[in-house]
């Protein structure tokens, strides 16, 4: 899981072009949206693209989004559970 979390942070920085941030500066349990990392709705779409392109996971139910993309850890858990399935 720790390896996936580290990879995911790097991928988020690349996908969202967060030039002002280093991957390791993103807290694993830091909220991605709002007052956390400050991501917005376009970033949410980019994260959906990331899940599909890098992990082959389609977010079938849009209402799952807020829960899945809450933190890097919640994303990693979602990827782990869906890849295993």
């Amino acid at each position, binding site marked *: 899981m720790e390896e996936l979390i580290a990879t995911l942070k790097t991928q988020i920085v690349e996908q969202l072009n967060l*030039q002002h941030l280093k991957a390791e500066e993103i807290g694993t349990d830091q909220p991605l949206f709002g007052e956390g990392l400050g991501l917005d709705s376009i970033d949410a779409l980019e994260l959906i*693209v990331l899940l599909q392109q890098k992990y082959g996971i389609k977010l079938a139910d849009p209402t799952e989004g807020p829960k899945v993309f809450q933190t890097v850890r919640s994303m990693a858990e979602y990827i782990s559970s869906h890849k295993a399935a």
Partner: protein
Amino acid sequence: MYINGIGCISPQPTFNNQVFLEEIKEYNTNRIYCVDTDYSKFFDVTALRRMSRIVKYGTAAGLIALNDAGIKTPDAISTGTGYGLLELSQRFLRDFISTNEGVVSPTSFIQSTHNTVSSNIALLTACHGHNNTFSQKWFSLESALYDAQFLLKEGKQNVLVGTYEEIGEFNYASLMQTNDLQAEPCSNLAMFSQNNDGVIVGEGAAYFLMAHEQNTTTYCKLKAFKTAHNNENIEILLQEFLAKNNLRNADVDVVMNGMNGDKSNDAVFNTINKNLFEDATQLAYKHLCGEHMTAVSFAIYAIAQIFKQQQIPSTLVLKNAERESNVILLHNKYKSYHSFFIFEKC
């Protein structure tokens, strides 16, 4: 129309209006790219990370021009660009194909609409007025200027007019395929003495705050302009244009030529200069910005600066007649696309 503010980002360090072509960049290649400035001075981090290079320098040029004119919100924005954001559009389409029409990144799509730069400027300046982008090949800037002229006649006080162009793989390959590009690397500064075939392609963005009235920030007056898609009778058309604006050949103090280093393109300038403007100062500019569909905007930037700074940098001069710059004629040309402009000192 008066030019009350300018902003230019080009292959030369032109982003600071207090300095006028003091440092000249020499390149030994057939494509010359913009000298970038620190864009974080113009955009916050969130906006910046979604902007491609052309969106950054295009939007920044618009903001520099507005700041220069002391205007926070223009009445309207009118832009001209030949290829626009074609590079980003292609990136989006390539992603679409490579993912088999699956989910693709939305950012390049959002950024690739043809009016992205104009609308970015509008968003950043709260401009809810007329906002349009013209793509008329080598007459794109001229089309935007016609638009501005009409808007000013309709009662707008000012219109932000500008251009942006980038060297993309598509336009570079197109010029290579048609042998319109210089085959061998050549110094841009030696462009006019090499008798070359083909051009050095360039890129850049320039915006101008065009206003109905003169004020303390005014650079000069754009008295008239005209386009001509014709390679015959250009000398006659040019004289008719001057006569229509109550000018004789001898009234022109300075001629800014749109020669681009391609001998087949430039021959006509030698004839016209000899026949019509023998006693005028002769200038050229495309060795500094390269050739592209809206390169003429670099000439307008340079002419505005000549009036404001009251000096002509030596890099522009082909022949110096030592005349005061009161009337400047700009004759731009690429193949059969000609445009003429008259600028007057205020």
